[in-house]
């Protein structure tokens, strides 16, 4: 049976809101965080819009020591530190400078180290100035940079793991933290993910011709999941962090419980039967969702809401079909479904954690956030499910159980089941 795992803290750096209050307001009212990027026009990218958080770098001085702040350059690291520390204090914890929390660990993921930091290294080395790089570069080049900063600031003494599973990174980090607590290996876990899509990563995606390119002058309309005019995704940046706790541990310290994670699954389709490096295969997705439901003992009929991966590509239709097959539900009987990406774009590794925070907020405040930019729903999707299942304005409704999934390059899938704490 194992232990019960609850969520007690949230922290977010999202293109449409830095900090939970601003983010909650934005997702309730359908406020987009996608903006035009003049630099991308100069760089001749096809897609010239992005989900970029309004992140005030200097505010990090409140989060790390002056010495750490001096020389900190990695954007994704900065987002991750802020989200994780906000989640920690949101959960009612204090930051102590001399305590090691042996029962508390961290799983925090990202896709790539900050390429702008890498670029500085390349430029210095190539011009014969390697000696001028200094002591602070390696710690920001490591794949484990963000976990090293977070765990050092908070004094975490359990497992410290930097995971990476492309666009499934965030949900995978949450699942890993959940499993450690569930199996009694940790009492509390700081979990989440971060991503900064700089011009180099953006350019590489742009070259794949999978980004939205027809709405450069209407940035807020550029991310259009499930619509007929969906023409690719909009890359986004940010971070999300959650504090997961063993229920007993949370009760003992009288923590406020936001929601419960009741199960989840993480698999790969093996890049067979429709799955490939860049596309998820249906058998893997259906199996992942089914395993998540089974692990939580959830009846598919009781799912109130699906927080989809739904990036605004041709894969949206297939995703809806797969949810329908996995849940055995379609037409009007399909659950409500939404895509946060309509407001913030696709934050790659950060997507899963930011979207999971949106799920927890919808459970806490009992609402379903709108899908924006859905004036022209894809008729092939409406052949599967009723338009009533795809809200375009906020719905106030009793939400008890939510399924959240993300699918990543390499044909990796993660699905989590969140429930109202009872």
């Amino acid at each position, binding site marked *: 049976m194992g232990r019960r795992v609850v969520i007690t803290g949230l922290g977010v750096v999202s293109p449409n809101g830095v900090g939970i209050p601003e983010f909650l307001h934005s997702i309730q009212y359908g406020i987009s965080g996608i903006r035009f990027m003049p630099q991308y026009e100069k760089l001749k990218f096809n897609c010239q819009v992005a989900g970029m958080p309004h992140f005030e770098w200097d505010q990090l001085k409140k989060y790390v020591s*002056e*010495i750490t702040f001096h020389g900190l350059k990695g954007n994704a690291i900065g987002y991750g530190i802020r989200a994780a520390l906000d989640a920690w204090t949101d959960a009612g914890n204090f930051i102590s400078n001399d305590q090691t929390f042996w029962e508390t660990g961290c799983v925090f993921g990202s896709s790539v180290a900050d390429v702008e930091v890498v670029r500085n290294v390349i430029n210095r080395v190539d011009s014969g100035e390697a*000696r*001028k790089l*200094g*002591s*602070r570069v390696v710690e920001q080049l490591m794949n484990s940079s963000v976990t090293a900063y977070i765990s050092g600031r908070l004094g975490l003494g359990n497992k410290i793991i930097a995971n990476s599973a492309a666009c499934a990174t965030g949900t995978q980090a949450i699942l890993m933290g959940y499993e450690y607590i569930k199996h009694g290996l940790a009492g509390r876990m700081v979990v989440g993910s971060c991503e900064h899509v700089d011009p180099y990563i953006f350019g590489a995606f742009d070259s794949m011709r999978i980004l939205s390119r027809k709405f450069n002058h209407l940035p807020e309309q550029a991310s259009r999941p499930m619509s007929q005019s969906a023409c690719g995704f909009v890359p986004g940046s940010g971070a999300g962090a959650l504090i997961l706790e063993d229920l007993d541990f949370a009760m003992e310290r009288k923590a406020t419980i936001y929601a419960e994670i009741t199960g989840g699954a993480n698999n790969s389709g093996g890049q067979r039967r429709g799955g490939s490096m860049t596309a998820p295969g249906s058998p893997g997705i259906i199996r992942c969702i089914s395993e998540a439901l089974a692990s939580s003992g959830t009846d598919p009929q009781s799912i109130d809401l699906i927080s989809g991966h739904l990036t605004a590509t041709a894969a949206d239709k297939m995703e809806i079909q797969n949810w329908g097959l996995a849940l055995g539900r379609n037409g009007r009987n399909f659950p409500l479904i939404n895509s946060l990406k309509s407001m913030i774009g696709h934050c790659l590794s950060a997507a899963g954690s930011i979207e999971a925070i949106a799920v927890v907020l919808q459970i806490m405040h009992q609402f379903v956030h709108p899908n924006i930019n859905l004036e022209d729903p894809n008729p092939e999707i409406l052949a599967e499910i009723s338009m009533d299942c795809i809200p375009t304005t906020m719905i106030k409704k009793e939400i008890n159980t939510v399924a959240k999934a993300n699918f990543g390059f390499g044909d990796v899938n993660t699905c989590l089941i969140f429930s109202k704490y009872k």
Partner: protein
Amino acid sequence: MDRQAILNELKLVLEPYTEDKEMLRGINDGTDLVKDLKINSANLVDIIIDAETKYNVEIDLDSAEKMITVGSCIDVIMAKMDR
């Protein structure tokens, strides 16, 4: 530049690397960077790189190893500036 001028400039170089601002204000030749100012020894290379820019000198690795106290830092910097 005399020793006092170099010391005053050195305070600015060391500033981002120590939290003990009071100790920094009162540094003298005998102040040890790691023991007294509690500077992380990994940051000594950053201080040397910053000092090179500040005083427009190049500090070789052998000289850098001598920079343990404020006094030895000033000695090394003065020797390099004389060149």
